[in-house]
């Protein structure tokens, strides 16, 4: 890519916006001030008190990450139509959220559960299954955080800030250190507050981009026709297409549906849901969050605009930054780049908090420190959030960004395997805990293997070549490995449940009642309690009178 050095105006705007956001992050500790931040409900879930408006920004900022804004147009730039799977993916996700998430919210609120694993433990009475879900969540989230850094990195690189030698990663480390500091002190309130700035900037940049850039490039008609010509001219090994060919349709819909199932299994998405103050907030958000999907569809088209503008980059992640630099005046490029970088901070913070919650609630306390007080839980989680961020930076610096892209692909496959334990558990107790655990294992192993065995001819990669697996056993089709693995997972769960029933292997204790899943926020929160209360005595009956 052409190296143009640092543009002062661009960098100054970037630095100014970044400073404002850091200030907001630290100030967030006073926002909706809690009497006592020293427990996970406050630090890790913002007091479970966010209304419709805040939740919209928080979830929007959470699931539409900077990496999405870089990677989806990059995919469209590279392979064309397949990259547009992001649109059906983020369409079908909302009916799922609308139906499923209020139940999860209610039961978690009732039982003081902070993480999806807390719920699994309460519902299936198995700390092993809960541990499996927790570890999957953490391992799947880590590379996702690292990818947010890739987003910041591509912006810094385009601005010419990335130096050489040991200084190369200094700006990145600095940005993340600041992020780590304010997440440590303010908890979930920090990303929730910053999300306002992030989304305002993103909306502004995208709306300007989808109007201004086509005007300069001669209209949408011209953009699409030049993309068509360009994609058609690519070698067959690139597997690029302008309209999804029949052979790739299974890949397209399994990728969309599988990703939709996976997204709200990610700990950071669940954290955003649990931080809402009521079921109604979640249901309402399922109807208004698609505004971001529309935005994402427009962002995907930036990939074609980059083609039409003649952007020629080998690292497709640089396509959008490069497009902005070519099309926008420098001051607006500064704003656009800030939007992407700040767009990375919000999800990175929530992901770190969610992983820290998982580590504390489902690994540290149950296995190492059973008598932890709520204050101690919060202290452990805060330190864990620092460790997670340091880990993510190390990921990027020590290992290659390509490695975290591979792992992120795997992360999606992995997190999808927790779907039966969490979502089936919300509706029925039919499935046996050991069957769910075996299904999880089967899905993890087969999914990992399929992702590993996928080559990418165009990029000369023998493994982890992409999200489409060529299935050859008893028939032939191309599909998302995570989705195939989920089918295997569910089949194992079904069969083994029947086997365990026949063998009369005891089920785990269920601490929930059917009513717990419908509960409105009609009760004050119980005093924050440690894990001991969550594990609880399964037979424990809460006074029914207290509910009405």
């Amino acid at each position, binding site marked *: 890519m052409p190296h143009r050095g640092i543009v002062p105006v661009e960098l100054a705007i970037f630095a100014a916006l970044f400073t404002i956001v850091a200030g907001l992050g630290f100030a967030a500790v006073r926002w909706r001030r809690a009497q006592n931040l020293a427990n996970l409900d406050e630090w890790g879930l913002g007091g*479970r*008190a966010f*209304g419709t408006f805040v939740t919209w920004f928080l979830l929007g900022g959470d699931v539409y990450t900077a990496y999405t804004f870089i990677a989806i147009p990059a995919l469209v730039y590279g392979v064309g*139509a397949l990259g*547009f799977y992001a*649109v*059906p993916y*983020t*369409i*079908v996700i*909302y*009916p799922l959220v*609308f*139906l499923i998430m209020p139940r999860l919210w209610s039961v978690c609120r009732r039982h003081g559960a902070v993480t999806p694993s807390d719920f699994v433990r309460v519902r299936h009475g198995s700390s092993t299954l809960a541990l499996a879900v927790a570890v999957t969540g953490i391992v799947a989230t880590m590379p996702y955080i690292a990818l947010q850094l890739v987003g910041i990195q591509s912006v810094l690189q385009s601005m010419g800030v990335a130096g050489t030698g040991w200084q190369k990663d200094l700006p990145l480390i600095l940005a993340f250190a600041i992020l780590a500091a304010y997440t440590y002190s303010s908890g979930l309130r920090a990303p929730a507050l910053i999300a306002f700035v992030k989304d305002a900037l993103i909306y502004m940049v995208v709306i300007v981009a989808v109007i201004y850039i086509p005007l300069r490039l001669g*209209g*949408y*008609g*011209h953009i*699409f*026709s030049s993309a068509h010509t360009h994609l058609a001219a690519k070698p067959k090994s690139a597997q690029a297409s*302008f*309209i*999804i*060919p*029949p052979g790739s*349709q299974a890949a397209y*819909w399994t990728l*969309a*549906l599988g990703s939709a199932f996976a997204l709200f299994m990610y700990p950071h998405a669940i954290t955003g849901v649990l931080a809402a*103050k*009521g079921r*109604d907030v979640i*249901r*309402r958000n*399922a*109807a*208004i969050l*698609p505004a971001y*999907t529309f935005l994402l*569809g427009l962002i995907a088209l930036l990939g074609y605009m980059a083609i039409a503008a003649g952007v020629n980059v080998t690292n497709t992640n640089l396509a959008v930054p490069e497009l902005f630099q070519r099309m926008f005046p420098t001051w607006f490029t500064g704003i656009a780049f800030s939007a992407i970088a700040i767009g990375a901070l919000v999800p990175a913070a929530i992901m770190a908090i969610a992983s820290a919650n998982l580590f504390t609630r489902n690994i540290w306390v149950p296995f190492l420190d059973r008598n932890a007080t709520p204050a101690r839980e919060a202290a452990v989680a805060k330190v864990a959030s620092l460790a997670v961020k340091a880990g993510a930076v190390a990921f990027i610096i020590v290992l290659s960004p390509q490695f975290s892209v591979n792992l992120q692909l795997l992360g999606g496959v992995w997190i999808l395997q927790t779907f039966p334990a969490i979502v089936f558990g919300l509706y029925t*107790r039919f499935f046996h805990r050991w069957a769910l655990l075996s299904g999880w294992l089967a899905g993890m192993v087969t999914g990992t293997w399929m992702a590993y065995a996928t080559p990418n001819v165009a990029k000369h990669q023998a493994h982890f070549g992409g999200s489409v697996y060529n299935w050859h056993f008893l028939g032939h089709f191309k599909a998302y490995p995570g989705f195939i693995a989920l089918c295997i997972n569910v089949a194992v769960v079904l069969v083994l449940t029947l086997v365990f029933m026949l063998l*009369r292997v005891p089920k785990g*204790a*269920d601490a929930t*009642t*059917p*009513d*717990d899943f*419908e509960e*409105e*926020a*009609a009760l*004050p*929160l119980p005093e924050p309690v440690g894990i001991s209360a969550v594990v609880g005595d399964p*037979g424990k*009956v*809460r006074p*029914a009178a207290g*509910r*009405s």
Partner: protein
Amino acid sequence: MAEGPVRSGDAAGTETGGRRRVSPLRRLWYLLLVVQFPAVLVPSFYARETPMVWGIPFFYWYQLLWVIIAALLTLIVYLFTRERGEASPSTERVTAEVSS
């Protein structure tokens, strides 16, 4: 579920839970949520270039259009299945106090 522990909370739960539940007839609205799945997950419906709108191939504008349709469908389902519709007003007040 015979092996499960005796859960004496069940009976009480059903009683108090009744008032919040959406009536079976109203639950039919949920069917609207199903429509979007085949509409966007069967690419053979829309993997075509024509008809174009403003130079945008059908494949692209169809899916973008469905973002809006799907959001409207969800909104309709939300409005017609509001859980608090028949609940006592006190529920709302308590909620507000708790979360403020």
